[in-house]
Every structure is written in C-alpha cells, then in structure tokens.
C-alpha cells in the first residue's frame, strides 16, 4: 500500500508541475487554459475509451518501465526502500529512459521529431542532474539518504543547518536537480491529429511520474525525514507534511522550469541545459567552499 501511495504521489506532483507550467504560460498570454496539462490527459483518456486510440506494446512497456523507476525512486526518497545515491540515480534514470521509449514510437512524424529533440535535451541536461545530485549528497558527506535523514532528525531541515554557504549550496543543488529533472522528461503530446489518446496518455503519465519522483528526491535531500512505512499509509500522518510541502514546491519549480523552456525558441532550447549546469556548479562551489 505504501509503495502504491508513493506512485500516486509522484503522479499528483507531476500533475501539479503541469498546472504550474500552464499557469506561467497563461501569464505570458500563451493560448489555452492554465489547467491544460491535466485537461489534455483527461481528453486523451476519453479518446482512448471512445475512439480506441490505443497504445502500442512498446509504448506500454516503456511507460511500465518509467512508472517502475519513478515508484522505486519515490519509495526510496520517502524512506520505504533502501536509498543510496546510486540506487536513486539508477531508478530515476529508468524513469527517464522508459518515458523516452514510450514517446519514441509516435504514430505521427512530428511526434517522432519531438521525441528525438527531447532525448537530445535530456542528454544535455544529464551532467547538471548528476552534478546536482552529487552535490546534495556531498553536502552531508554521505552516500545514503538514510544517513541524511538521520542528520535532519538531529540537526533539523537541511536548509537551516549552517554554515550558511553550505545551506545555500544545498538549496541551489535541489533547485538545479528539479530544473534539470524537468529537462529530462519525455515530450508533451502535440496538437496535430493522431498524437492523441492512449499513447499521449501514457507519455503524460511518464512525465508526471518522473517530475514527481524528482521533486520528492529533492525534498528528501532538503528535509528528508522520511514518511516511513507507518506514516506512509493512508491517511498520511502529520509528520509527512514538511516533506510533502517541499515536494509540492519542487513540483512547482519543475513546472516553472518547463515553462521557461517553452518560452525559448525551438532552436534555442538547448540553452536551458547549460543554464542548469551553471546552477549546479554554483551549488558545488558553495558546498565545497563551506
């Protein structure tokens, strides 16, 4: 039950990220409502049932792999599974790769192009993602979330534990992690005919699960008192609130990063990757200097 809840949490957080993206795009007068990400998923589900716009085996398998990866990462971040840095990374890598596999067999040509560009952007963003994750662990001189949770238990949330430069470095690392995570996602479904229904719904679920799992991981690094098997059962207990609040904030940051990406012209979107790398490098300098 607790692990199932972890997956649901990632999906809700991912939907929140999409809403944040829609909100910012609406602010900048992009046509469409702010809830368009969630509304699109609903219309895809309706098309799936009504018109039998079905997914292919590869899309289903890719989505399955992505959801497993996100579940493992979210459960590790919440303290339900062993949670070393290597395990967290590999689980998040599975979530990202699975999403790109699901998006790779788009029924329309434009979708294939989008998928290839998204894969390329994901690769460009990976150094920033790896560096940010490494810096967050380096801050605590630990390789395991369990040790970091212990430090939080004794000293308090990571963003409050001094020296100030180290705390600032940790916050920057978490921001870079979430922003780079947003660039690793599979592409949004297009508007053209044929890129709707089951395949689009599965890719959306992949994106949501990855965004949610990344936000939960960043939250665990910042204030990682895990949910624990008992606290993670429904209804959630009060001690889970700080972690979930931070994860929700992380999801919003991911949504903002995604909106920033869409604000760039198509040919300049790769610039987002070096921008997140600069953020991660700044975090490294702060943590190392402290």
């Amino acid at each position, binding site marked *: 039950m607790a692990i199932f809840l972890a997956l649901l949490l990632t999906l809700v957080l991912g939907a929140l990220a999409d809403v944040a993206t829609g909100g910012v795009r609406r602010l900048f007068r992009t046509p469409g409502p702010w809830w368009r990400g969630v509304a699109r998923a609903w219309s895809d589900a309706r098309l799936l049932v009504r018109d039998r716009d079905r997914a292919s085996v590869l899309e289903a398998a890719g989505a399955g792999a992505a959801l497993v990866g*996100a579940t493992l990462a979210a459960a590790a971040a919440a303290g339900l599974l062993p949670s070393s840095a290597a395990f967290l990374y590999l689980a998040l890598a599975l979530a990202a790769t699975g999403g790109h596999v699901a998006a790779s067999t788009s029924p329309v040509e434009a979708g294939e192009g989008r998928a290839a560009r998204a894969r390329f952007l994901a690769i460009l963003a990976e150094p920033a993602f790896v560096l940010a994750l490494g810096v967050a662990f380096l801050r605590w001189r630990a390789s395991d979330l369990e040790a970091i949770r212990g430090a939080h238990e004794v000293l308090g949330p990571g963003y409050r534990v001094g020296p100030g430069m180290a705390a600032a470095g940790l916050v920057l690392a978490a921001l870079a992690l979430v922003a780079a995570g947003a660039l690793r996602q599979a592409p949004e479904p297009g508007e053209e005919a044929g890129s709707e229904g089951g395949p689009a719904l599965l890719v959306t679920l992949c994106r949501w699960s990855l965004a949610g799992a990344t936000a939960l991981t960043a939250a665990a690094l910042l204030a990682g008192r895990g949910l624990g098997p008992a606290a993670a059962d429904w209804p959630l207990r009060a001690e889970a609130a700080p972690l979930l609040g931070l994860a929700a904030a992380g999801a919003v940051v991911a949504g903002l990063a995604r909106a920033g990406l869409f604000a760039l012209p198509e040919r300049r979107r790769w610039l987002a990757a070096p921008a997140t790398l600069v953020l991660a490098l700044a975090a490294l300098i702060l943590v190392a200097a402290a």
Partner: protein
Amino acid sequence: MMFAGDTLVQAAALGPAAAGVVWLLLSPWPVARRIGGGLLALAAHVAAWAVLWRLYSGEAVSWRGLEPDLLRASIVAFAQIGILLAATRAERLPSAGAAGAMIALGVATSAMTYGAYATGLVTLALLVPVTTLAAAAAGLTGSGRRDLGGIAGLAAADVLVVAGLSMVLARTGSTVLGPAGGHDLGTWVLLLGAAAKAGAIPGIGTWRLAATGGPGAPVAAVIRGQGIALLVVAGPGIAGVEGSVPVAAGAALLAFACGAAGLRAARASGALSAVTGVGACIPFLALGLGGAVGFRAFLTAAPAFLLAAGAAFAVAWAQDPPLAEPSRPPRGGRWLGAATLAVAGASLVGLPPGGGFPGTWLALDLAAVRAEVDPWTLALAGLTVLGLLAAALAAVPLLRAVRPKRLPAALAALVAGALLYMGAAPVRLGIGWFIRIERAGAVPELLPASGAPGLPGVPGGQLLTALVPAAAIVLLVVLLGRGLRGSGTDGFAPLIVRREPRGLLRRAAELRAEAERLFLGVGLAMLLEIGVIFGLVRLVLLGAHQGFL
C-alpha cells in the same frame, strides 16, 4: 561420476572446434548440419557447465596444462551462452559467409576456452591471436571490405596482451599464472588489450567488428568472452583485488566515451555497439575500485554483461537497412525481440531490474561511499552514469528497429528472463558462488561495522512490489483501449542527424574509404600479427628459461 574431469575439460575446450568442423562438413545439408553441429556444440557447452559444477563442488578438474579455477570456468560457461546465441544468427547468413562464420566461431571458442582454462602464461599468450585470426578469416568470406572492420584494432589488442604478459613474466619470473600482488605497467597494458577485446573502446577492435554486418561479427561474442577472461587474469589473477586508480579512471572515461559515441551513432549497429561497450566498462570499473566490495561488484556484473551482450546481439545485430534480412518476421517475433532487447539493454546500462543492475549499483555505490573520503571518486561515478544514460537513450530507437527471426528471439528471450531473475535476486542466485570464489581469491573479509555497501541493494520482493502498481496502471490503459495497436513506425532514427562532411572531414572520409578499398586495415593487422608472432617467440624462449618447455 559419468565422465572423468579430464574428459570434461577436453570436451569443453575442444568440442566447439569439433562442432564447427562437423557443421562445415555437413554444410550442404541444412537439417543435418544443424543437428550434427548443434548437438556437438551443445555437448561442449554442457561440458563447460559440468566443469563449473565440479569446481563448485570442490573437486579439482584438470587435463595437462589446463586446470581452471571456478571464476575462469564460470566466465567460459557464461560466454558460451552468448556465443551459442550468436551462432543462431551466423547460421542464417548466406552460404559462404555462414560457413566462414561457423567454423571461425568454433575455432575461436575453443581457443578462448583453452586460454581461460590454462594455468600457464605462455599457453595463454599463444592462444590470444587465434580469435583475431578467426574473425579475419570469417570476414574474408563476406561480401565486402567493410566486413573486415575492427581487425586492425584487434591485432593491436593482441600486441598489447602479449606485451603485457611478457612484462608480467619478466617481473614475476614465473610462467605459472598466479597472484603477483598489485598492478604494474604489465597488468595495465594487458587490461588495455582486454578492454579492446571486450568491446569497451569506441570505434576500435570488437566495437567495430560487431558493428559490421558480415560473417566476422558473430565472432565478436567470443572475443568479448576472451576480453573478460583476460580481465580476470590481469585483475584478480595477477594483481589481486587491491584496485587501481588508473584502471577505475580509465573505465569511467571509456564508459563516458561509449555513451558519447552512442549519441553520434548514425546506424543501429553503432547504437548496439555503444550500449554493449558501456556495459563492458562496468566490470573494469568494479575491479579498478577494488577491495572486497569492488570484487563482489565484478562477480555480479561480469556474467550479466556476457549474457546481456549475447542476447542483444542475437536480436539486434544487422538491423541496418542494407544489411537487414529480407523477409519480415511476424509481429509477435518483433515484439518478443523488442522486449528481449529492452531487458538486455537495461542490463547492459545497469538499470533495474536488469541483470546488470546489482553489479552496476554496487560499483557506483562503492564509488559514492569512497567519495566521503576521496571526493574524486564521485567524478568517476558521474562520468560513468553519464555514459550509461547516454548509451541508454541512444539505444531507444533500436527497440523499434529490431526484426529478429523466431529462433534467435525465443532463445534470447529465455536469457532475458534469466537476466531479470539475476537482477531481482542476485544473492539468492549467487551467494555460494561468490563465497567460493572470494575464498579462493583470498579476498579480505569485510566487517559489517565498516559501513561498506553490500548486496542486495533492493530485495527482489520489494522490486516486485514496485512492479505491481506500475503494471496495474499500464494494464488499465490497455484495458480502456481494449487492446494494443501495431507500431506503425519502423527503422532506426539516429539521435543526431549528421550533415554531409565538408572540408577536412570529407577528405578524411575519402581517405578512410580509400584505405578500406586497398585493404590497408587488413595489411596493418597482418603487420601487427607478425609483431605478435615475434613477441610470442620471445615469450616462449623466455618461458623456456623458466621451465615452460
């Protein structure tokens, strides 16, 4: 006991060559050659497992200069699975190519097995170039000069291996392979040769050979096995499990380079070589990090690499348009092939729950733990994971390009199933094997209080629990759509579409084509192999002074 130990060793070492010869003799009759050659090859493979089982049970098994230890016998058995899978593809090549590939596979497998079982350094060295020569001979039966790709690199790897073994002999003064304590120039040179043979160096040796569509490519499965066997010799066999910073750093850099090369892959074969190459780097990284945990990571990663590389080759080799087999297999075969490739690919890049996951996880976790004291090891882990993810994403378009035949797909799917089990329950599967090899290798005991990472990273039950909700959601989507649709897309779409080369790059491409036309690569390989022969003569003379003859 039905068979004596020496009979089993003979059968395992010489059986593959006999199977190749029988296949060649019966080649005019397709059914007869499959039955005759296939049965002999299977018998030799069963013998290799029987040798492993005898050693596992604590019996000594030997024949003349062959006295394998459990680790090297295991590498042979796992490598032979990949070779049998490659044989199912080689067997279906056009007639001359098939004959060349099958006899080369048999002879090379015997040389690889004989070398891995050998206790003598000189015997091992004498057998090193045989696999390269077999691949070259097979390539010559193909239809184009491109079928000989990678031969020069493999010949250079032979030079390195023979030179490395000579240095080891000069240092230890003994022709018997045994622990000499620590890495030196000889082991590093030997490891570089092993890396080229394992396919871990982009664009060189086995990497290029496996990317060709000709009859030499299946021999790459044998050469990969030889590369891992040489890694065992140079690592735990000679240097022990102390670890080496240059080896770990080299493996991390190679993993990164493999990922980068995967991104540039314009064809399916390039992406396949990249994903296999990055998988080959993990055992090197594990041994480079060293210690009890590094050695355990190696033990977990190496068999999974050999199996996954074999399965991936069986379903995804020769899928580029000019090379693809003409008939389209039924849809079920395609999906089986794609699923198998997905599991094998996940194993090679260390993603859960593939068979390579526990070893990759343990090696990366070890690097992260070491980073608490030496932060630079975090950079090694970072480089490695960047290579892993780049290779994984570069291989994504491969999944929709696979069009395997039923038999290779079905056999590779069985191996993929085994890989999933290895990924989910590595300790249950291998604990007895780990302990026996670690005891024989005098690996230091680890106190639990030291805080070192250990297997399993995540118990199989928990992995399974995570599968259930994900599968439930996907199943719901499938049920809502009342089934699945056909793919509709086909072929390999490269991640980076390369422009036509201009200026110097164009000139370089023309020069390369001209070199291929004039067989310069083969000429260079011949020269290098002549150098190898001189090196071997010198080694035999040196060995003679130490009592080899």
